[in-house]
């Protein structure tokens, strides 16, 4: 009997281990967090009365600000990495060959170096006075420069730096989905450079742009290390606020409520976007 089911639907059986793993280690934890967020403040009990007061408190107790910073940072990073990655992807696609492959490999490589190492490097580079940049300029050109380390801008630069590859690689796939003849047809029918971009290139590369944008935005929404290492105390992001609730304030239900809010913001973006994208088609390329 089992054998017959297996024969008819082997896919489901192969999917089973993954489904079970994800249910246990991904879905269940999210449920626990969701349940915790409904508990009274500062309790470790999971059986108390259910209520929405943590969510109310989230908006009245000043957690709106960190959430806003995270959203703004994520949005800015997404837009800026997209602007940087688009011409890069076009160049690498247009000149595909040995050099382009080398460049792509070189861009990919740092992704596998821990972001704590890279962000630390960025802070050493930007450090005022004796930093790599300031120190070199001082020693070689006798120029003293200031530094924007420990500002919101520095945190933003860090986010762009870390997340650029996550935008570039999907976009490379996206740009590869633009057939040359469509661009030529548009030009032949009177489209200028901008019209070609707007009417043909962007719509055709949209799946790549969407995936890259989504990935970048979502990763940035939770990003914490950039603000911690480069932003100094200039900015508190939502992840830092959640962590603070969990660790120092020992207020798990409040931390859980904030977590649920971030997850909700993520879900609002991810679900509609993923419904539009045919991942199969992109992966098969």
């Amino acid at each position: 009997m089992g054998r017959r089911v297996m024969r008819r639907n082997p896919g489901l059986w192969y999917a089973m281990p993954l489904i079970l793993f994800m249910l246990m280690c991904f879905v269940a934890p999210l449920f626990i967090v969701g349940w915790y967020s409904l508990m009274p403040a500062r309790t470790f009990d999971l059986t108390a009365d259910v209520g929405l007061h943590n969510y109310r408190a989230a908006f009245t107790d000043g957690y709106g600000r960190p959430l806003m910073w995270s959203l703004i940072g994520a949005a800015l990073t997404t837009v800026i990495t997209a602007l940087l990655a688009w011409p890069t992807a076009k160049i690498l696609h247009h000149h595909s060959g040995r050099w382009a492959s080398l460049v792509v490999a070189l861009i990919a490589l740092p992704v596998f170096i821990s972001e704590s190492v890279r962000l630390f490097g960025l802070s050493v580079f930007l450090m005022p006075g004796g930093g790599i940049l300031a120190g070199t300029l001082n020693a070689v050109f006798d120029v003293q420069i200031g530094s924007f380390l420990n500002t919101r801008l520095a945190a933003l630069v860090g986010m762009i730096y870390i997340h650029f590859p996550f935008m570039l690689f999907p976009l490379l796939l996206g740009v590869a989905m633009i057939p040359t003849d469509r661009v030529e047809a548009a030009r032949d029918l009177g489209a200028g450079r901008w019209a070609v971009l707007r009417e043909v290139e962007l719509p055709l590369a949209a799946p790549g742009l969407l995936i890259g944008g989504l990935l970048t935005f979502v990763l940035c929404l939770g990003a914490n290390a950039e603000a911690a290492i480069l932003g100094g105390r200039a900015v508190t992001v939502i992840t830092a606020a959640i962590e603070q609730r969990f660790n120092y304030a020992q207020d798990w239900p409040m931390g859980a409520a904030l977590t649920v809010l971030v997850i909700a913001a993520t879900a609002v973006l991810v679900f509609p976007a993923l419904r539009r994208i045919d991942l199969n088609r992109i992966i098969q390329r």
Partner: protein
Amino acid sequence: MTHPPPALTLTGLTKRFGTLTAVDRVSIDIREGEFFTIVGPSGSGKSSLVRLLAGLETPTEGSLLLRGRDITLTPANRRPTAMVFQSLALFDHRSVGQNIEFAMKMKGVKPGLRRDRAMDLLRLVRLPEDYYDRSVTQCSGGERQRVALARALGSDPEILFFDEPLSAIDYRLRKTLEVELKELHQRTGKTFVYITHSLEEAMVMSDRIAIMRAGQFVQIGTPDEIYRRPVNRFVAGFMGEVNILAVSQTDGAPMFADLGLPAHGAQGAYAVLRPESLSPGNGRAVSFDAEVTLKLMLGSRTQYHMRAVGKSLIAEVGAATHTDLSIGQNARFSFDPADIAWVDG
């Protein structure tokens, strides 16, 4: 009668890619309202030439005038011409209507006006009006051809270019579309420049045909001229199966070397003889013996392949002719020297 300027004037048009010369000093006037077809095998440079004409490539040398205006360096989007691409290059992310309106949108035509015009064009290419909102991905092969045609016409071009648009289509549909294209040409009165590798296709539709080889025009003429008076073996061979007989001079008298027969009145180094000009029996002026090696039934005609002395030849007989030869049989075949087209190269 005054002559209007030609639709296109090509003067010494040349395109080189590195060391390869794709288009080699092509000069010609393409007349207003003409259906002009460029025929050549792949690699002959015909696609490069049409891309030069459409402005998708810039020529290395030479000039191009459109109704007397120099457009040599004008980019494609500023030329009042439109092309139907080999791949059609339809915008799959847009509806049929949006595809057709694309050029009008680029020119800033108001949406209402665009829609009216798109509807006219749908009728013109014989597509139902409710196709307007359909996705081009839902269209069949023939429908996609019509959408591509309507899209090109949507820019109201002075000249339409076609880069082998029918090459990937099955035979029956291609025949239908050839006729429709010819009709459309007559109805619109626009200049059509058509690229194909099929001389048969060119014959059906064109006013004039240019045969292209290695970047140059080998022969330019009406379909009839090309058919009756090919200038060389290359052009003759392009028409499909033909018999080519070398003429040799023996003791000052011309001979068909392969057949060992005198070639009276030879006017070239080679005689081009079409299969239908060669028939079984003794009925025509020049006759010889041959062994039938293959017999092909082609519906309305029957084709015989034969071996005469050292030469393989082909004869075609209409189904109405009651000759029935079988493979291996020795038979007499004959032809009329008047049917020969003489060429030198």
